């Protein structure tokens, strides 16, 4: 499995520059809630590979927007590889994605939210 860096600071900085710190804090909340829902949908639908692909595609894009490189990369692996994966492999990949999401959430709450709020 490819190892991805957790976070790409440059992308996040651009986002802050474009949108402003206040909006980012709000967007991060939206992202975290939304992605959690998507992960639930992924976990419930191992039989439906089309849904898997779609949800993985969406997580890849939105995580990429914030610079969450690991989450985005793992989601892309699922989007591209899900059709060839056995159910066990897919379950493992989704578990890995969820672990990455938890790490990302903790990182974002500990570092980014505060940083954004301080900037306001």
């Amino acid at each position, binding site marked *: 499995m490819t190892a991805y860096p957790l976070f790409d600071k440059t992308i996040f900085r651009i986002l802050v520059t*474009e949108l402003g710190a206040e*909006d980012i804090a709000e*967007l991060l909340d*939206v992202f975290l809630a939304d992605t959690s829902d998507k992960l639930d949908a992924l976990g419930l639908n191992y039989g439906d590979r089309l849904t898997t692909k779609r949800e993985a595609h969406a997580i890849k*894009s939105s995580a990429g*927007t914030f610079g969450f490189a690991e989450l985005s990369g793992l989601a892309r692996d699922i989007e591209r590889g899900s059709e060839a994966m056995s159910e066990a492999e897919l379950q493992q990949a989704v578990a890995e994605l969820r672990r990455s999401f938890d790490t990302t959430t903790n990182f974002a709450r500990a570092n980014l939210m505060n940083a954004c709020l301080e900037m306001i």
Partner: protein
Amino acid sequence: MSPGAPGTDARGRLLVVDDDLLQRTVIGKIGSKLGFQIIAVSSFEEASRLLRSQSFDGMTLDLSLGEHDGVELLRLIADCRLNALPIVIISGCEERILNSTRRVAEGLALTVADCLPKPLNLARLREALCLPHRVTAEAAAAAAPGIDRGRLALGLARNEFFVEFQPKVELLTGKVVGAEALARWRTPEFGVISPAAFIPMVEGFGLMPELTNVILSSAIAQSRTLIEKHPDLAIAVNVSGSLLSDLMLPERVEGMLRSEGVPARHLIVEVTESVAMSDVDRAIDILVRLRIKGVGAAIDDFGTGYSSLAALARFPFNELKIDGSFVKGCDTDPDMMKIVKGCVGLAKAFKMKVVAEGVENLATLASVREAGCDIGQGHLFAPSLAADRFEAWMGRRSEPAQSLSLGGRPVAVTM
């Protein structure tokens, strides 16, 4: 809400179509900072309802829309005749799909402000949304007036057909190396008739041998004076594939060259292979004999025919002309650039010169140069010109101040 957002919606209404909540929010925030009033929807159904009932000043469209896809929506926009609506197309799909989608949209005569891959480059999105409205090109299909076989034959008998020359420029040096002689038709009652209209009719009515004779003899006769002043010029004449069954053609061409005193190396026949070129062996026979006599042979409109690759392998061509439809898009469309480069590779393998047709701006010129094309032809250099204007244009180019300028174009020219 967002700091700095103008209270007035100075830029008008922006329709954001995206099934992803976060993406929708991000695009909405950028749009609103720019002064748009944002209307964000997440489904094909909502978007189509709004597009039918309300007016918008811009739109962003994510190609993946759950059950439907963005291409269906593009078609709906065309059906609603919203051709002037600037659209930013966004997709997480691979680049080739995004490029093809742009072509679908342009094929529908829609206004594509930009095509953006994901993750979104926000600065580029902002620029695309700031772009002023572009005027969409109206596809003005020239309707042929009431012309039948009798009128065409009369035109040939009355010498209403004539030749104009479009320069061919060596890309490395900017030197004019030749010109394509193009058939033109001026009638007293209809004025100038577009070749796009009359060539298919001439072909259809079986008058191509007569027209080719007129064009060949006229081009050869006029090229003599041109060649006296510019001894390196080669004049190209289109010969329809359907004519390459006339075994007397090489002798007839040789006779015309001899009577005007023009050496054979100053003539190139440009052949568009088509289904009409039915007898391949006979066509090869004719082209080989022309080549032995010293006449050049170019494969024209390369890439658009039915069997271009087979023709390339079997016919004795020494020049390949890449069709303008590939050249025109190659500076912005990576897929077109790949085709242009592929053509160059093929041509070089056969030791042929490569001509890029339809070079209309500097960006295209830079791209075809980069691709390795030898010669360029197109409006950037000059449109087709009557022989005296062509000569004057050549004269101006050879003046020191003009010699390095590739765009030494004459101003008003009647086409």
